[in-house]
């Protein structure tokens, strides 16, 4: 790694400082910083030629940073920093922390994240796009100023790779599904207007339209937004490259929206034309024909069932709450229409829907249509999903498929004890896990965790022996806590 160091502790600067003239010090330091920035900026490109060349790092301290952040030198600092793999600013004041963050935020136009645990980090946390505060021994000021609060620095990995990624996927799914279901529902009415002489007669009853988004299709999408996981948390950390899918906005771009919209249009065509063309001659067992409200109830039933089934198709992980909410929504629709059709009071505005569903459900036409229309509508979606997963899979789908046979990590730990035959290894680890557990060694400092210093080292396969002072610290902590 090649380090570019801009320090204010050089001999030349000390010499000028000893002379004591403030203006001269300021001018000299500015000249020095400018010269060094220029020099490093010229030197940096030659390291880019070879892909296996050393990584670049910039180290700058607070005094020089004060001059480097002036408008004339700011651009050079930014360019140089963006070319480096890491930039270390030491001895900076809180204001400078915020200034550096703003510089990157506005200059590089990237999403910035800042994380800190003390009161001096508050301005930096607020300057960045996403501010993360660590709650701990240094107090709660950082937490109160932040967007997200975590307890340990190492939880940042989980926050980004697991929860951040899931959150992006869930958000995309919820928003897309919302637009899709309303599009399918509304376009069905749109096709109806062609058959009404463009008079604007509504296809559905007023109550159906009002309650569609409130009761019949609302809860399942909330459940998806809460629980959907494309891959488990341990796999998310194992394949951090999957985070790039969010960075490149792969799930909510124009192509995705256009595809969902096309399928919504196709489904609305199926809903309207299948139902209306097949009901033009359908009648109940006594020859009586259907009217407008019977046809629209039939179509609405198909819409509700299809839209809920489509939700199940787009889930990556299905908990029992999904089944409950999807089944529940469909059942609520039937309960509602039974009650709505069965009751006619003096206060109804119109009695169009009286007894409609009972007559409908006494015909076999209803059941054949209810079997056919959702399947025909979802046929296109299913085909698209199958082909996309097979020939053009997303990265997370590849990971899903390669790990689909892995045992669930959420298996109850007791289940192993009930197995009759344990291999000697399993029996041994079982015994170990049943020993009394030690009290947690976390001391509450943000950057502290047992074995932290070797965490990243182990990622690269290197073994780093613990430092002597750390061993001593742990030993002292152990004696403090009383074993049970």
């Amino acid at each position, binding site marked *: 790694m090649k380090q570019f160091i801009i320090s204010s502790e050089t001999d030349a600067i000390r010499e000028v400082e000893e002379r004591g003239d403030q203006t001269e010090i300021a001018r000299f330091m500015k000249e020095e910083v400018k010269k060094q920035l220029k020099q490093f900026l010229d030197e940096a490109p030659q390291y880019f030629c070879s892909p296996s060349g050393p990584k670049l790092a910039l180290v700058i301290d607070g005094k020089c940073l004060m001059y480097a952040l002036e408008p004339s030198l700011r651009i050079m600092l930014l360019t140089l920093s963006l070319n480096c793999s890491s930039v270390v600013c030491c001895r900076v004041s809180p204001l400078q922390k915020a200034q550096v963050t703003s510089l990157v935020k506005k200059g590089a136009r990237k999403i910035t994240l800042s994380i800190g645990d003390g009161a001096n980090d508050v301005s930096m946390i607020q300057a960045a796009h996403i501010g993360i505060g660590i709650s701990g021994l240094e107090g709660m000021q950082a937490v109160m100023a932040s967007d997200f609060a975590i307890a340990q620095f190492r939880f940042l990995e989980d926050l980004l790779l697991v929860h951040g990624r*899931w959150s992006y996927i869930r958000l995309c799914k919820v928003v897309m599904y919302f637009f899709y279901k309303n599009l399918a529902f509304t376009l069905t009415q749109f096709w109806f207007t062609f*058959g*009404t*002489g463009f*008079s604007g*007669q509504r296809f559905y009853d007023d109550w159906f339209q009002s309650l569609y988004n409130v009761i019949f299709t609302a809860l399942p999408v909330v459940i998806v937004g809460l*629980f959907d*996981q494309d891959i488990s948390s341990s796999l998310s950390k194992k*394949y951090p*490259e*999957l*985070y*790039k899918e969010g960075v*490149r906005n*792969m799930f909510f771009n124009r192509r995705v929206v256009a595809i969902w919209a096309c399928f919504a249009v196709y489904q609305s065509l199926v809903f309207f034309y*299948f139902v*209306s*063309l097949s009901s*033009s*001659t*359908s009648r109940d*067992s006594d*020859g*009586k*024909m*259907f*009217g*407008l409200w*019977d046809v*629209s109830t039939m179509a609405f039933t198909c819409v509700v069932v299809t839209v809920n089934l489509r939700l199940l198709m787009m889930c*990556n*992980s*299905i*908990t*029992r*709450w999904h089944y409950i909410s999807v089944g529940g929504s469909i059942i609520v629709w039937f309960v509602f229409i039974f009650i709505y059709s069965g009751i*006619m009071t*003096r206060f109804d505005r*119109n*009695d169009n829907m*009286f*007894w409609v569903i009972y007559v409908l459900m006494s015909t076999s*036409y209803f059941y*054949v249509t209810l079997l*056919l229309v959702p*399947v025909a509508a979802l*046929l296109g979606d*299913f*085909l698209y999903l*199958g082909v996309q997963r*097979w020939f053009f899979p*997303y*990265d997370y789908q*590849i*990971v899903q498929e*390669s790990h*689909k046979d892995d045992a669930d990590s959420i298996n*109850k730990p007791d289940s192993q004890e009930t197995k009759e035959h344990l291999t000697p290894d399993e029996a041994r680890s079982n015994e170990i896990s*049943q020993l*009394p557990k030690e009290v947690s060694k976390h001391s509450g400092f943000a950057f502290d965790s047992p074995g932290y210093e070797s965490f990243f080292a182990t990622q690269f396969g290197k073994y780093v022996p613990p430092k002597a002072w750390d061993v001593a610290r742990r030993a002292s902590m152990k004696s403090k806590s009383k074993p049970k």
Partner: protein
Amino acid sequence: MDTDRERHSARETAFYLFTQQSLPACKPVLTPGWVIAIFLFMGVIFIPVGLVTLRASHCVVEIVDRYDIDCVPESSRMDKVSYIRDDSIPKNCSRFMKVHKYMKAPIYIYYQLDNYYQNHRRYVKSRSDKQLLDGQKYHDTSSCQPVESNNNRPIVPCGLIAWSLFNDTFEFIREGAELKVNRKNIAWKSDRGHKFGKNVYPFNFQNGTLIGGGKLNPEIPLSDQEDLIVWMRTSALPSFRKLYGRIEEDLDVDDVVVVNLTNNYNTYSFGGKKKLVLSTSSWLGGKNDFLGHACVFVGCSSLTLAIIFMLLHVKYRRTDIISSYVIKGVNRVIIVPFAGLMETRVIYLGTGKAFQGDSDKIDIHSSFLIDDVLDFTGTSASLGKGSLSDIRQGVVTAPILFAMEEFPRLKSVIQQGFDNPANVDTALEYLWKNRGIQRSKELAIKHANLVAAAIDSLPESSNIDVTKSRQALINLTRILVTRNK
């Protein structure tokens, strides 16, 4: 022990699972096998359903006769509107309907209207359901405008729907004897019972200057006026049928039914059509092939798709994704074998692309393939790292993969892991026996040639730097492939 159990039980409560995002879930993965199975299943279900439905539809016998043009006498054909409006001309008409297939009782008589927009917004709105129940006692009939009152007296039933009541009548005669038509029970029972009052009588109906349709007998309560009830159930489409009555006798083949009808209703001012329909009924309803055809279409297309996917599955057999590599911490690679190991598809996670011809990425690919080969063939002196370090660390590399293909027994050895040094030796034995290493080398050379071909296929350039760098790239690939350390 107690704290352990407590901790375990706390970990299993639903609230803990919810907050820790670890609810038990099933994670369905749509593999090609499932796609094919589901399409097959759909085909198997829908084709019989469709055929049964089609058969039901073909069982229905239907006779349709359009009479509105032919029932106007020749002399008045130029101006049908004034003909139909003239009350002094008798509107009787005789039509002949020939039965082409045996029709079993009950035979339903429908009148069909085309281009008649009963679903127009102003029309659908123009009724008062409360007045139908309460009669003149109910006063808020503003929704019935403009047919609300006449000469300051309320109209019962008000509204455009009632005002435009269909009033053609039909009589059926077969072989001189009149066929009895049952005109009772043609409206929905719920309408008769609950929507139209039993004590409400028509009042001041069709008394205005503009006659819209039929008149109603003021002695019969609304709940028994079945024609009105049938008419007031507005239909969904501009072309609709409504039930007129039932014939309770069978009709044989080649019977000729004479229909004496009165052509009262005016559909001429807006270009509508009137038709008379005699139809039997099946368990599914009337004669409509649409459901049957749709079911058969869905079933057939599912089966076709299943067959297409099966062929694709055989041709591009995608066995389980084999392994993931880490290339010097650059990017994670997953090898997806397509139709055998020689045609692998390299997918780089995080870049959103799969490569089978991108030159610079294949460069790295062939480079690390050679790396793996050298791990086996080189010595620690020339390599700089311990030879066989890959296999000792349990990393499965390309030569082992090729060996696994030839010797399935090697797979079980590898699954046992390489902790046991005996396994390592067994694996090495298999490796030297087969051509695994040779094939790895061949694969690397093949990819290097692909790279060179790709570079050559770039368009010609006169810039010296460009040609120089291209030549450098080609040389680089050669060096990478033929290196010994």
